[in-house]
């Protein structure tokens, strides 16, 4: 840590620090527009932005103090104070929120003995922060410590998670690679995305390594793209020499040895004999072997997963589980870059645009603007300098489509982007990827390099006069930068203020040049359309919304994950057939689509087919594709408040209605959720919501009231009940209490678990909860083996 060094070495280290700053400036540049990459590099070096380093930046670059303050305090990524050695990021995305992320956050703070005002432990080991969304919604609640992700973290598991992390950190330091020389006889494929890693794929990876070493079976371990069945992970595919594949969902590390032995024979006869003997001994010593995964039939093993996958149609995620994200030869063997070659070598630019126009493809980022029309607008300008930007600033809490597409299918997105560049006559492409997705950035960067090596990026592609190259710009943590004019402002090195349109970016965009901005998913649909033609594409989906849509299915659903379905599939089909119904046998209450810009669709409307227009009619929006299932135990007022507090934090602050108006709406919702609201408040809330929709200037502000308006429309009664002080779901803490029922046997488990000493230690007596001390964390409910503690409404 730089700060500790400073104290020890005084002046000398300041000089050393300046040398480090200078090296970064030499590498990154000195113009005003590179401020964000420069600050990112400085933070990577020092773990925060030391003021001495910033002073050096003023001296050596065009960046002045006004710009520095303006930009470095706008983006959530930048820190001005030193943090602890490890950073705990508690995800508070929608899915995590409905599963109790706030309780997890509180539990960490309690476990680490943090005061109310600090965010760093006294020993400087840990800092804690809430983060908008890690994009691992199927594993909610999720926590990330440094680079390692933990899924299904309950308040009671906090200590366990910290211990596991410490062990992991030690192992990381000690780990040494062991590369064998023999050629592999088979292949084990496993997903290595964030969510797979969170569910323990790393342990599986290690187990495969160990087992192959121990058994003398040399197998290649291949990280593959996401299957999307995030609830079935860790999941491995064993590819046999004959080309067939055996799939094992939910594997445990101890099962790996068995699986390998089942499929492969060790290289030497002696090893075979030894293994057989040792296995027999194992069998006698452990009874677990008898319930081994191998004894189950194929159907039993993969039953749920096959229904999960069967209703889906894959365009953006074509080649799931088969294609390695960064194996360019394999991608090309599966028709990869065929569309690009076809477009560049056989189609005039206008023909490409016409194909996209005829396909009816609509932008997948939220608005649903016809992609072909956007392309025509950019192509129509006669300026020579044009840009194509891929918008990967997916900030909706509860959405992780773009992350998985970029992590798993970066080559397809790049292909779509090059085709777009060819069609509109641009030479430069920029990937804008949010900082919270480091894996996506790494994969995309690597994929770009691979394309350059293959001559798919660069000068005169396919012998034509078309040249194109791509760079990556990492977002710095601002939801508003998903709005295209704000995104442009941030690439130009300013705070992410949206500006008024027109002029549209298609006419006057990045650095004043015509700019095409398409969402990740939109670009990933392009190659399919070019390969199969507009007609074939139109046969999928509905008339006004052709094609497929990728959704991030999460919340209170049995099997969450990334899904891709034809437009027009109903919400019920998605929840029942793909998602396996509502979790815990509860009744469906509503589905939230479109994140903070969308709305809640009540259960009775869930048989409506999903497309752009149907969702808008119901008061929600397609958005980028977050889909959070809400059950009877979800409080709709709380859900509305959750989204409003998100947009309130993410508002850029420029305009009155968004900056102040949303804050005032949140004030009212806070009052409602604490039982202090009045009926008049509900009317005021509605009036404000409608006015903000009319008066906000950008997409964020205009859509921010949607969660409130849609819940008011379908669940007004619940608002009125909150005025009377009733929250039936027990979510709003001020309106509930915990009660110990007669089932209590006095086992004292709850008393031991209680972090606030609200339950007196009374063995063999029915326990009693002191409500003044209770923090309603719910730990006792989890601990109780007799189901004797319940949340009940204060009033009824």
């Amino acid at each position, binding site marked *: 840590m730089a700060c500790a060094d400073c104290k020890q070495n005084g002046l000398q280290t300041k000089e050393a620090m300046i040398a480090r700053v200078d090296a970064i400036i030499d590498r990154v540049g000195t113009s005003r527009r590179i401020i964000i990459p420069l600050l990112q590099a400085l933070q990577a070096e020092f773990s925060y932005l030391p003021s001495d380093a910033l002073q050096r930046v003023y001296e050596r670059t065009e960046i*002045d103090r006004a710009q520095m303050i303006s930009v470095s305090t706008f983006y959530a990524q930048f820190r001005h104070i030193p943090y602890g050695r490890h950073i705990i990021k508690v995800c508070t995305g929608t899915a995590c929120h409905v599963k109790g992320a706030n309780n997890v956050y509180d539990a960490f703070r309690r476990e680490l003995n943090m005061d109310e005002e600090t965010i760093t432990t006294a020993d400087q080991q840990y800092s804690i922060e809430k983060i908008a969304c890690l994009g691992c919604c199927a594993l909610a609640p999720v926590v990330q410590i440094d680079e390692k992700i933990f899924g299904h973290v309950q308040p009671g598991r906090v200590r366990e998670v910290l211990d596991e992390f410490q062990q992991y950190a030690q192992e990381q330091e000690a780990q040494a690679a062991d590369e064998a020389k023999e050629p592999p006889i088979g292949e084990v494929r496993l997903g290595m995305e964030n969510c797979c890693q969170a569910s323990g794929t790393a342990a599986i990876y290690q187990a495969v390594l160990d087992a192959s070493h121990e058994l003398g079976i040399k197998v290649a371990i291949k990280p593959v793209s996401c299957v999307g069945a995030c609830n079935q992970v860790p999941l491995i595919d064993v590819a046999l020499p004959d080309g067939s594949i055996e799939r094992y969902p939910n594997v445990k590390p101890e099962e790996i040895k068995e699986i390998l032995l089942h499929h492969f024979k060790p290289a030497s006869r002696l090893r075979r004999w030894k293994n057989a003997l040792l296995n027999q001994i194992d069998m006698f010593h452990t009874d677990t072997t008898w319930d081994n995964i191998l004894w189950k039939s194929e159907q039993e093993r993969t039953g749920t997963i096959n229904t999960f996958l069967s209703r889906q149609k894959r365009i953006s995620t074509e080649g799931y589980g088969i294609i390695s994200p960064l194996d360019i030869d394999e991608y090309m063997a599966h028709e990869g870059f065929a569309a690009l070659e076809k477009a560049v070598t056989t189609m005039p630019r206008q023909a490409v645009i016409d194909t996209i126009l005829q396909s009816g493809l609509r932008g997948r980022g939220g608005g649903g603007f016809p992609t072909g029309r956007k392309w025509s607008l950019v192509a129509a300008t006669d300026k020579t300098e044009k840009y194509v930007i891929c918008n990967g600033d997916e900030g909706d809490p509860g959405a992780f489509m773009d992350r998985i597409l970029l992590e798993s299918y970066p080559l397809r997105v790049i292909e779509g982007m090059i085709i777009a560049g060819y069609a509109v006559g641009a030479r430069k492409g920029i990937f804008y990827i949010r900082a919270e997705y480091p894996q996506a950035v790494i994969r995309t960067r690597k994929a770009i390099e691979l394309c350059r090596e293959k001559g798919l990026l660069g000068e005169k592609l396919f012998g034509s006069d078309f040249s194109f190259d791509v760079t990556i710009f990492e977002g710095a943590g601002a939801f508003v930068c998903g709005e295209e004019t704000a995104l442009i402002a941030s690439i130009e090195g300013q705070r992410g203020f949206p500006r008024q349109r027109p002029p549209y970016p298609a006419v006057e965009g990045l650095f004043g040049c015509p700019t095409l901005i398409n969402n990740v998913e939109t670009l990933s649909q392009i190659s399919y359309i070019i390969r199969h033609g507009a007609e074939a594409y139109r046969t999928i989906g509905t008339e006004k919304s052709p094609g497929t849509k990728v959704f991030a299915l999460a919340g209170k659903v049995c099997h969450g994950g990334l899904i891709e379905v034809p437009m027009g599939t109903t919400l019920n089909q998605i929840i029942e057939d793909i998602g396996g119904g509502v979790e815990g046998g509860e009744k469906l209450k509503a589905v939230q689509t479109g994140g903070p810009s969308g709305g809640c669709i009540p259960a009775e409307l869930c048989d409506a087919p999903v497309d752009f227009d149907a969702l808008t009619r119901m008061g929600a929006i397609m958005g980028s594709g977050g889909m959070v299932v809400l059950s009877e135990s979800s409080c709709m007022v709380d859900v509305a408040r959750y989204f409003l507090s998100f947009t309130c934090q993410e508002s850029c*602050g420029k305009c*009155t209605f968004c900056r*102040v108006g949303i804050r005032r709406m949140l004030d009212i919702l806070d009052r409602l959720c604490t039982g202090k609201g009045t009926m008049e408040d509900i009317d005021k809330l509605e009036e404000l919501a409608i006015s903000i929709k009319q*008066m906000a200037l950008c997409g964020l502000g205009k859509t921010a009231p949607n969660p409130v308006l849609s819940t008011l429309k379908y669940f007004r009664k619940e608002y009125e009940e909150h005025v009377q002080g009733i929250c039936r779901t027990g979510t709003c803490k001020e309106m509930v209490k915990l009660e110990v029922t007669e089932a209590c046997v006095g086992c004292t488990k709850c008393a031991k678990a209680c972090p606030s000493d609200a339950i007196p230690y009374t063995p063999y007596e029915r326990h009693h909860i002191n409500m003044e001390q209770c923090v309603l964390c719910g730990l006792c409910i989890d601990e109780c083996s007799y189901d004797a503690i319940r949340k009940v409404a204060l009033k009824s």
Partner: protein
Amino acid sequence: MQITINNQVIEVHEGETLIEVARRAGLELPSMCYAKGAKHKSSCMVCVVKNVQTGQMIPSCSTLPTEGMVIDTQSEEVLKLRQLSLELLLSDHRADCEAPCSIVCPKGLDVEHLLWLYDTRRLAEARSFLAATFPLDQLGCANCKAPCEKACRRGTVDKAVQIRAIIQSLAERTDLALLPAVTPHAADKKSFISKLGRFTPKEKEWLKETVDAPSRCLHCACPGHTDCKLRRYATEAGIKRPRYEVSSALPVKEKIHVNGRLWYEPAKCIRCGLCVYNSDNGFTFERRGFVMQVVIPEENRSNVPEQLATLCPTGALFLME
């Protein structure tokens, strides 16, 4: 090009925005974040008008007219939204337009101004100002129930300013000659008056520590009150008090000396950004959303010209000797 504003057909000049067209045609349109000839970005939405053809509400200060546009600037719908934008700005404006003591004085004395002269040690001026309001020999303070001291904001911090004692002491200073022609100005009670509300415990502590004027007066009255657009439009719109809970993330009562005669009081800022966009490495935005504020780093203070005060639509930037 021609457009229609409120049924009146108007010829558009090259490069004009809607507000400029409307104002040239003699229509009155309020605006705060816009100043003619200065760099600006639409934000306040006080200048909102309706595009009748699309039904959209648009900021007239930055929208360029298109051929045949039909604009409405004064329907009830527009006026209501304009009023709401002012109400929202006022709900984030923890400041007093007039000092409470000046408002309540039965004799109509601008008490705060008197204390200002007293605190800046212009005692002769202070005495003359007092004399211009009422004859010194008929000073009624001794028998007055002193609503000024009851209303005093300092009273909510620790103890009210001893207003009557100060007035008495000034009246007794016969050694100070009365200056000729002092205009007695009084508090403007007819216009809208923004009220600061209660101080938080933290603010009270801070005020106790930092306010050290001889009279102990907090000087609540806004130095910009004669030229505040927010107050003027709120009065025109007939707003009595904001309908929304007043809360602000801005520091209350903090006055920053920028340079020369230029002062900055963040609590009165509506964050329109005119001072940011029109100063080079001077004022800048800090943070985002509701807690966003305009700041002036110490190192940048000399980069700001005094004229910037004329751009500020409220009393946040003001000139003071």
